[in-house]
């Protein structure tokens, strides 16, 4: 195409295309990553994060706890809600209780609200949250990145089941106010003039849902769109040719293989190792991901773990680099298989979810790698939902684990993958009491370096036993049209007022 993408004329209006549609504006009801991204603009929690994941004040100005169980939050004064009312402590307590209600918040209640014992107003601008077990990193949990979205109690009650719908829209305290929502098409937001903080962003932000990658690219090329998220890594070069400036950032996602040690022949560590040695991770990252990814040496990505290293991912990366992940070595692979119960190879099935084309291609590459060993890997594509339901069903010896952490919890991935043993608790049905105990213990520790050390220790055990075979940590790419500048970007950027980071020339 010869036409290059130019920003649409109006400097005060930013049009953003994202890949998935949301059915409701309420993250309590639908907790997909697109929901979080949008909510970051219109709703807030007690705390917030900056682009690196560092906890910053939001609706609470300060917080403290003596025992990591009882947390006292001092609230910001004179915060206006989008409906014109002033935020009260009651609104926040109510929002916390809504998050705890599994009926009202099926998507959220399984996280931090699960261990909240009570939330009370303990002063005019103070609330106290009591936990059932100590959690030293609790403040970050009550941020909008992890899942607290404060609204007006009155509005919530009035809206009932229409809360977050196109009829009633939603009320929050965020820098933008939702003015229009069509679940089959777009969300329009305008600057909230009574916002307590600063907002240098464009006057209007329109987020369009354009699921199909090629359509999104065409929309971008035609100049109808200023910014596009979710640029497929395989076509970045093409987008650039069409005039896009692209910016990539580590999105903390984990892609790896899971072996169920209870399913033959993967109950044999040599088989697992043979497979792990045979996977050419580097080739996958450079060939299929075009370099938009990182060969994974551990499970939680350095960016995720950075919460425990002063939000400096490079520090965490130094640690993860030392983990004993297996790297490509065909000779060793063959040697391992020789020693195994299936020296002549075997047949297995690997499924990947629809919509994860990269995983599909990686699967085919893995199959080709394994063919050299005499292992026949049948690759199957299944709907995402079925794939999800099949995780850890105890029938698949080898499976993909694709994990996009939504919270800033540094060990979010391992907290599940290495969770207490027994069937169904972790995707591999791996039963290692020691590791499980370690995982449970992480939350009770005070010092972040200790937590990091403990998580890395259990990760090491898992890698040594080759239960999880990490392949890569993913990256996301944002495209901006000519005339649109993107000031900064970071791992947790989408949990901040990201719209304000874009500026447009008139």
């Amino acid at each position, binding site marked *: 195409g010869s036409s290059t993408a130019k920003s649409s004329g109006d400097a005060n209006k930013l049009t953003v295309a994202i890949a998935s549609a949301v059915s409701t504006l309420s993250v309590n009801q639908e907790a997909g990553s697109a929901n979080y991204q949008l909510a970051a603009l219109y709703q807030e929690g007690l705390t917030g994060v900056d682009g690196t994941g560092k906890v910053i004040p939001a609706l609470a100005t300060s917080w403290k706890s003596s025992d990591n169980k009882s947390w006292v939050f001092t609230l910001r004064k004179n915060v206006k809600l989008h409906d014109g009312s002033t935020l009260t402590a009651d609104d926040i307590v109510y929002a916390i209780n809504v998050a705890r209600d599994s009926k009202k918040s099926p998507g959220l209640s399984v996280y931090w609200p699960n261990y909240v014992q009570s939330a009370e107003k303990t002063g005019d601008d103070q609330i106290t949250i009591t936990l059932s077990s100590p959690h030293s990193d609790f403040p970050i949990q009550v941020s909008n990145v992890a899942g607290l979205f404060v609204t007006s109690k009155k509005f919530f009650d009035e809206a009932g089941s229409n809360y977050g719908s196109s009829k009633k829209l939603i009320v929050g305290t965020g820098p933008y106010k939702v003015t229009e929502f069509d679940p089959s098409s777009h969300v329009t937001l305008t600057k909230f003039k009574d916002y307590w903080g600063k907002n240098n962003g464009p006057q209007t932000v329109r987020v369009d849902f354009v699921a199909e990658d090629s359509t999104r690219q*065409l*929309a971008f090329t035609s100049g109808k769109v200023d910014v596009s998220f979710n640029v497929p890594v395989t076509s970045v070069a093409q987008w650039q040719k069409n005039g896009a400036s692209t910016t990539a950032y580590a999105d903390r996602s984990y892609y790896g293989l899971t072996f169920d040690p209870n399913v033959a022949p993967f109950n044999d560590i040599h088989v697992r190792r043979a497979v792990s040695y045979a996977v050419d991770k580097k080739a996958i990252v450079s060939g299929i991901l075009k370099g938009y990814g990182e060969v994974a040496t551990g499970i939680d990505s350095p960016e995720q773990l950075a919460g425990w290293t002063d939000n400096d991912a490079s520090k965490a990366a130094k640690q993860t680099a030392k983990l004993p992940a297996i790297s490509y070595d065909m000779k060793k692979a063959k040697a391992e298989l020789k020693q195994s119960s299936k020296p002549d190879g075997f047949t297995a099935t690997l499924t990947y979810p629809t919509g994860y084309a990269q995983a599909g291609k990686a699967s085919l590459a893995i199959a080709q790698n394994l063919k050299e060993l005499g292992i026949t890997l049948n690759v199957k594509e299944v709907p995402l939902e079925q794939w999800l339901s099949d995780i850890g069903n105890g029938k698949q010896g080898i499976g993909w684990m694709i994990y996009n952490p939504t919270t800033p919890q540094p060990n979010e991935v391992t907290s599940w993958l290495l969770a207490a043993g027994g069937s169904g608790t972790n995707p591999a049905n791996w039963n290692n009491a020691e590791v499980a105990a370690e995982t449970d213990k992480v939350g009770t520790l005070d010092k972040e370096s200790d937590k990091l050390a403990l998580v890395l220790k259990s990760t090491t055990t898992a890698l040594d036993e080759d239960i999880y075979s990490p392949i890569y940590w993913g990256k996301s790419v944002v495209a901006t049209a000519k005339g649109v500048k993107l000031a900064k970007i970071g791992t947790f950027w989408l949990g901040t007022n990201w719209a304000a980071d874009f500026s447009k020339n008139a």
Partner: protein
Amino acid sequence: MRIVTKGGFVKVAKFIGRRLLNLVILLFVLSLVTFGLLYLTNSDPARTLAGAKKVSAAQLAEIRHQYHLDEPLWKQYAIWLGNAIHGDFGTSIRTQLPVAQMIGQRAWVTLTLALMAIAIALLIGLPLGVVAAKRHGTWRDGLITALAVVGVSAPSFSVGLLLLYVFAVKLGWFPVYGLGDGSFADAVPHLLLPAITLAVGLFAAVIKVSRASLLEQVESDYTLFAQSRGVSRGTITRWQLRNAALPIMTSSGLLIASLISGTVVVETTFSLGGLGTLLQESVTFKDIPVVQAVTLLLATVICVTTAIIDALYTLVDPRLRPSGGHRGSADAPASKEGEA
């Protein structure tokens, strides 16, 4: 045309009454079958709802309990049916939204899209079919048929992208995606390109069926006689079309049926959130209330279309009218004609 005769209203009322009864029976059986089929899929809504996340067994059980997924099958169905009869189609498991609201937001997109597509297909396909039949055996016939087949064999997402590239991006005649500002007036131009994309796949059916059934008429005696009397070509063509109408109408009705549930790809390509995508997402999610409601809605639309077409049959063909009488035979009792 004599349409309304004495007692016509009674007949119409009877026709509608019988159809309604059919519809109710159909909807009931359909809801049972859909329910059963959904039950047979092996995805677990509780698990999907939680996502690829750490969830405890207790939490999963809690979710299942909330949506009655832990009840025995018959009880789940009974609960659903009880609510449905009272007009409450429940809330979506996936989004927690009232099902009626979810469908309401999207139904018109798909229905408008389907209607526009079928209208375009008929407007262009029928004349081409007529030409092909009249010029039967000539190069024009061959060309039209070949083009139609190319249309049907071109996968709709390729066609969609191609149309988008040429007409929306290069020429800028149409919007690239979405539904515009949400008003119906703005939606129509947005739906035009997707409708054309769908229509491309339908031309073939329209052209081939109309060609085949018109061909029977072209050399019939009544055509020749009409020609010999100097009856205008337009009138003769209309007569022939009417004689060929039964199969054409049937296949158009079928096309509507296939369209209504077959718009997923086009909806995705053009970023139109419609029933197609909703149904697809809900089926893979095993979002029982939504699947049930969408399926029933589509079935109702299909049944109503069928009923309209059957009513049209009798309008078009006097021999099928119960009032007109016909040279019935022992094997074809007169009563069956009215309901086809």
